[in-house]
């Protein structure tokens, strides 16, 4: 009986990570955060490179935390969580990318855009 109870209590943690896993995730995240921070305030790199680097660091940290903290890729099969996650990423990319594309295009093409920009800068209404 005791054995069964402990199996019940362990069940939720079966897919969770180990201490080493959490530690690795933590340290890697720390390194990425702090390097992104110092690269930004030091201004030693060109701006374009910095923009790319910050994005790369953020995305790597995103995946590191998904792996070590959320254990996303350790799902037991069938991997429905992963499937939902991938679908979500697709939707987010479509949504954010599409919105930015549409809105940039609007700003570029709307003949009023310069006036709107001007009035915005004046802080007044149309």
């Amino acid at each position: 009986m005791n054995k069964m109870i402990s199996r019940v209590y362990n069940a939720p943690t079966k897919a969770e990570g180990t201490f080493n896993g959490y530690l690795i995730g933590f340290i890697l995240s720390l390194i990425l955060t702090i390097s992104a921070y110092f690269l930004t305030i030091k201004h030693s790199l060109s701006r374009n490179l910095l923009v790319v680097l910050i994005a790369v660091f953020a995305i790597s940290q995103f995946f590191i935390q998904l792996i070590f903290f959320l254990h996303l890729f350790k799902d037991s099969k069938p991997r429905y969580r992963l499937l939902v996650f991938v679908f979500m990423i697709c939707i987010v990319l479509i949504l954010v990318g599409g919105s930015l594309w549409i809105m940039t295009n609007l700003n570029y093409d709307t003949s009023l855009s310069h006036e709107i920009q001007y009035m915005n800068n004046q802080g007044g209404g149309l």
Partner: protein
Amino acid sequence: MTVLTTTFNEQRSSLAVLRFDESNHFYDIANFGFFVYLMTDFVLFSGLFAVYAVLHNNTAGGPTGSTLFNLHNVLTETLLLLTSSFTCGLSILSLRHRNKHKVLIYLAITFILGALFLILELSEFKHLINTGNSWRRSGFLSSFFVLVSTHGLHILIGLIWMIVMFIRILKRGLSRASVRRLTLFSLFWHFLDIIWIFIFSIVYLYGALNL
């Protein structure tokens, strides 16, 4: 058939018969459902990020991000949240060893770090508002305040959740429901850390670069 009879609720002990596989299955379902909820929250934040990206140059003659943000303060916030994510993980690890004491200690540390984060964030807001740069100032500041404070609101909910769990574990021990909820909470907390990475990079670091 394996039937597990265990009383985990005094009031309803006569009803408290749970098939062993059903209990596991229920955990599995709750876990998946909560994960789907987190995905919807990702979409919600991505909407806010999209709005921020569209509006971040609409300063209406007001200040830009690079003149407003105190990056040092933000780094402290980031480190606090990251550490709290780590201690939250340790709390979950202690669950496995059924170590109630350790679970509670790590939970308390997570709470304190989260609360410090929130205090720092609020002091940043207060400073901005006092210097005349509230959300009313421009489209950029509106989107900044809403994006960051939506994350802050999630943190606040997480803090309340932690208090509730802390009291329950203290009173009732590591019951089945507490274990389940603590595991779901850890997902929530790690998720908030992930959102913060993007706020840190996109709002603050890119903001400092005047992107």
